[in-house]
C-alpha cells in the first residue's frame, strides 16, 4: 500500500510565516495541472506499489483547483493505481475558497476529507499572519462543510502568535470545540528563515514569539483537548474516536509515499526523492518528459534516525517490538541514550515501548537528537 501526495503550488496571498513552496501568481495554474498529470504518466509505471490507501492534496492551496481539475488528476492516477481501497482523500482548503458552490463541487469529487486552514478566529491574528480570510469566513465554512456532508474534517490552528494571550488561545480552542470536529492540528508559530515574519522580527517590526508563553499555550492545548475528548496522538495532532489522519500517520510509520508536483517528496523505503521547487522549471521538465528530481539514499543509520524522529513524536513512540527488529547497534544505542530521559521522566517506558511524557513533548527535538545515531 502506498500514499500519494500532490503538491498544488499556488496561493492567493503569502502568509507571513509560510516557507512552503508556492506562487501567488495563478498564471501557470493550467500548465501545472497538465504537468502533474504528465508526472503521473512518467513516474507511476515505475512506482513499486499499486494499491493506494490515501491521497492527499497539499500546498500551497489545493482549494484553488476546481472540482474538474481534481477529477482529471484522479483519472490519471486511476490509470496506474488501484484506487478502490482509498480510505482517505484529503484536500487542504482555505476558508475564503470554501464557498457553498465550491463545497458542492468538492462533494461531487472523490475528495472525502477537508483540512481547513482556520489558524485563528481572531481578526488581529489573521491580519498579523496575512491570512486571506476573516474570522467570520472561518466560522461559516465549517458550518457549510458540515451541511454539505463533509463529516471528515480537520482544522488547523496556530498558537504562540505574538500578542495572543492565553485567554484568547483558550477562546480559540473553545470556538473550535463547539463544532465537535473529529480532528485538529495545532501548530506553534514557527519563524522560518526567509519569510516575511522573519524579516519583521529581525527589523524589530514585530516581537518574536515568547517561548514561555508558547510553552504555556502548548500545555493549555494538551489539557483542553484531552478534556474535550481528543487524543493527543502526535505533537501537533489531536483526534476524536481514533479518527487519526491516515495519510500523515503513514509518514510517521515509514510507509512509502509518492509525491507529485513541484517540491513534493517521495519515499520508497530506501530512497527519498524531491522534485525541483520551482514552478516554471517543473513544468518545463515535465513538458520535455524529464524528471527534475533529487534522490538521496538513506543508510541504515539515516533510517534509524528518521524512525526515532517520527515515532517519538507520536503517542505510540518507539515500540519494543520494532526495536528488536533493528540491528543491535541501533537498539542498544537507543536503550543507552533513552535511559537518562526515563530517569528524568521525559520519557515513559511502558509495556510495549517508549513514549514522550507531557514534559518530554516540550523538548521533543532535543530528546530525539540525543537518541540519534551518528558514527
Amino acid at each position, binding site marked *: 500500500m502506498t500514499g500519494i501526495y500532490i503538491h498544488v503550488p499556488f496561493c492567493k496571498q503569502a502568509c507571513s510565516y509560510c516557507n512552503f513552496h508556492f506562487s501567488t501568481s495563478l498564471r501557470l495554474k493550467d500548465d501545472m495541472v497538465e504537468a502533474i498529470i504528465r508526472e503521473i504518466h512518467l513516474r507511476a509505471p515505475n512506482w513499486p506499489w499499486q494499491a493506494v490507501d490515501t491521497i492527499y492534496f497539499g500546498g500551497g492551496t489545493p482549494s484553488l483547483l476546481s472540482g474538474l481539475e481534481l477529477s482529471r488528476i484522479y483519472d490519471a492516477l486511476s490509470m496506474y493505481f488501484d484506487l478502490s481501497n482509498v480510505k482517505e482523500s484529503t484536500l487542504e482548503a482555505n476558508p475564503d475558497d470554501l464557498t457553498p458552490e465550491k463545497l458542492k463541487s468538492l462533494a461531487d469529487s472523490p475528495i472525502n476529507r477537508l483540512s481547513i486552514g482556520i489558524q485563528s478566529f481572531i481578526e488581529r491574528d489573521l491580519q498579523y499572519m496575512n491570512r486571506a480570510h476573516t474570522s467570520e469566513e472561518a466560522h461559516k465554512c465549517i458550518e457549510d462543510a458540515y451541511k454539505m456532508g463533509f463529516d471528515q474534517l480537520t482544522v488547523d490552528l496556530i498558537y504562540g502568535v505574538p500578542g495572543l494571550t492565553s485567554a484568547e488561545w483558550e477562546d480559540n480552542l473553545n470556538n473550535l470545540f463547539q463544532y465537535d470536529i473529529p480532528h485538529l492540528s495545532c*501548530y506553534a508559530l*514557527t519563524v522560518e528563515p526567509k519569510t516575511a515574519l522573519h524579516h519583521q522580527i529581525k527589523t524589530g517590526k514585530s516581537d518574536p514569539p515568547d517561548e514561555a508563553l508558547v510553552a504555556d499555550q502548548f500545555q493549555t492545548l494538551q489539557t483542553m483537548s484531552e478534556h474535550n475528548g481528543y487524543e493527543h496522538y502526535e505533537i501537533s495532532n489531536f483526534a476524536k474516536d481514533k479518527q487519526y489522519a491516515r495519510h500523515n500517520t503513514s509518514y510517521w510509520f515509514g510507509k512509502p509515499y509518492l509525491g507529485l508536483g513541484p517540491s513534493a517528496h517521495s519515499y520508497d523505503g530506501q530512497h527519498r526523492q524531491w522534485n525541483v521547487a520551482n514552478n516554471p522549471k517543473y513544468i518545463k521538465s515535465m513538458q520535455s518528459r524529464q524528471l527534475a528530481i533529487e534522490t538521496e539514499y538513506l543508510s541504515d543509520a539515516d533510517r534509524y*534516525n528518521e524512525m526515532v524522529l517520527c515515532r517519538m513524536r507520536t503517542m505510540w513512540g518507539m515500540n519494543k517490538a520494532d526495536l528488536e527488529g533493528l540491528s543491535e547497534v541501533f537498539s542498544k544505542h537507543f536503550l543507552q541514550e533513552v535511559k537518562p530521559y526515563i530517569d528524568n521522566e521525559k520519557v515513559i517506558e511502558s509495556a510495549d515501548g517508549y513514549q514522550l511524557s507531557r514534559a518530554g513533548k516540550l*523538548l521533543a527535538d532535543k530528546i530525539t537528537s540525543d537518541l540519534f545515531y*551518528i558514527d
Partner: protein
Amino acid sequence: MKLIRNFCVIAHIDHGKSTLSDRMLEITQTIGEREMQDQALDNMDLERERGITIKSHAIQLYYPAKDGNTYTFNLIDTPGHVDFSYEVSRSIAACEGALLLVDAAQGIQAQTISNLYLAIEHDLEIIPILNKVDMESAMIDEVSDQIIDLIGCKKEEIILASGKTGQGIPDILEAIVDRIPAPTGDVNAPLQGLVFDSVYNPFRGVVAYVRIMNGVLNQGDTVRFVNTKKEYDADEIGILQMNQVPKKKLEAGNVGYIITGIKISKEIKVGDTVTTVDNPCEKAIQGFEDVKPMVFAGIYPIDNDDFEDLRDALEKLQLNDASLTFEPESSAALGFGFRCGFLGMLHLEIIQERLSREFDQDVITTVPNVSYQAMLTKRGSEEFNVNTPNDFPDPGVLAYVKEPYIQAQIITKPEFIGAIMTLCLDKRGELKKQIYLTQERVELHFDLPLAEIVFDFYDKLKSVSKGYASFDYQPLHYKETDLVLLELKLNGEPVDALSALVHRTKAESIGRKVCKKLKDLLPRQQFMIAIQAAVGAKIIARETISALRKDVTAKCYGGDITRKRKLLEKQKKGKKKMRQVGNVEVPQKAFLEVLKLGD
C-alpha cells in the same frame, strides 16, 4: 664556491615574497610549467588555504648569468607573520644576502624594518626591491624615498619589480650575482655545517637542512652534532629542489640536507653544528637562541580516552615545528591534557588545525595566557614560572608576580596617532618614542604587557587605524604586576579551564565581558545556568541563561523529514563536541573563544 649565492627573501607579511620566488623558479626553469602553481613553495595545505607562508622554504636554482657563468642560487623564502619571525632569523644565518621586498602600494611596514635589522645584524648584503609596481595604487616615488631613508641606499640600487607580471626579475637575478658576495669558507678545513632548519618525514625521519660553512660532507660520513654530541651516519645527503635530490657530497658554501634516520625530535637541534667524527672542527658555529613560547594554553582531547593519541600527535608535530612545546597537565574540568606553548595566537590556531587535519584530533583549547614569574613569601623559595591559572599561588603566600613586556613598533599615518595612543594606553602601554619616518609616516614605540597584545590587539589596531598601521614586537623584560585569578563559575562550580589570569584593574570589565560572551556561547539547557566571574570570594559579574522550556518542531510531514533529520543530526554532532562541566554542557570552541572579547 665563487659561483654560489645564498640569499633569503624577506619582507612584511603579504608583500609578495612567495610570488616573487615563483617567478625566479620559473625563469630558471627550476620548476616545470606543468607543476607551476601560485606560491609554489608554500607546500603545506594550510599555507595554501590561508595564502600565507608559515615555514621557511629553501630551494636551489641554477642561473646562467650574463657573464657567461652558471650560478647556483640557494633561495630561502621566509614567512612574514610576526609569530614566525624566528624562521626568518634562522634563514638569515644560512645566507650572505637578502632580497628585501617592499609592497609599492603599502610602503615600509613594521616587519620590513624588523626583518631588515635582523639581516643587517648578520651583515647580509641587502638588495632593496620595490614590489607590486604593476598595481594601480603603487606609489613608486614615495616608497622609493622611504626605502632610501631606511637603508641609506641610492635610488638606482632599488629594483622595481612585480611578482605578478615578472617585471624586474632579470635585474634581480643579475643583482644577486653582482651584489651578493659569494660564500667564504675553506673546502679543505674540517667539516663545519650549520643546521638551520629541520622537517619531519614519516618514512625517513628527521631531515636536517644544513649550510656547509667549511669542509666537505660526503654521503656515508659518520657525523657528529656538536651540541647534542650524538653521532650518526649520513645515510643520504643532497640538495633541495622541488624535491630532495641526493648527491654524493656537499661542499663549503652550499646548502643541502642530511638524513640520518633520526626519529626523535630531541636528538636534533636546529642551530647545532654538524661535523665529522674522523676530522672534527674545532668549534661550534654560534647557534640560535631557543625560541620562547609567548602564549600558553591547555590542549585537551574531547574524549578522555584519546589522551595518548593526542600525545603522539603532538610529538609528531613537534618534529616539524620545534617551536611547539608541551607538557602534561590536568584540569578539574577537562581531565588530562597538555599545557602547550605557542609563538602567538596564529601559531596556536595552526597547531589546533593541524591536529585536526593531520591527526584527526579534535581538541579543546583552554583560555590562553602568557607565562608569569612568581615568588612566594616563604623563606628560601625561588622564582618559578606560572604558565597556567592552576599554578597561580594563593595571594596570601605570594611575594610578587611579574609579567612579560614587549617592545612594540607601530608604523602608521600621523592622523591615527591619537587613536593608537588611546588603544595602547588602555592596554597598559607606555609610549617610548615617536619618530617621523617621513611627513606621512610615523613610527611609535611602546612598551606593552605581552598579555595585552596576544588576543585581539592586532584586530583592534587595524580597526582604529582603518588598516593603516603595522605592528611588530620583541620580548623586553619581566616587570612586577598586580595579577589576579579571574575565576569562572557555572552554577556555582569553578571551571578552571575557563578561568584566566588578568590584571587587577581589568578584572571587572573582563569578567563582565566573559560572562556575556559565555551567555552567547553556551547552549540553553533544561535548567537555568548561572554564569559568574569571581576574584577571590567576590563575585564581580554574573549572567544567567534561562532554562530551555520548549524545543520541538511544529510540523513533521513527508516533505519535512529529511531536513529535520539533518538538522537534528547536526545538533547531535555538535553535542558530541561538548564537554560536560558539572551538569553544564560547554561547546568545544567556547574555551578558546571566551577571551576573544572583540567590541
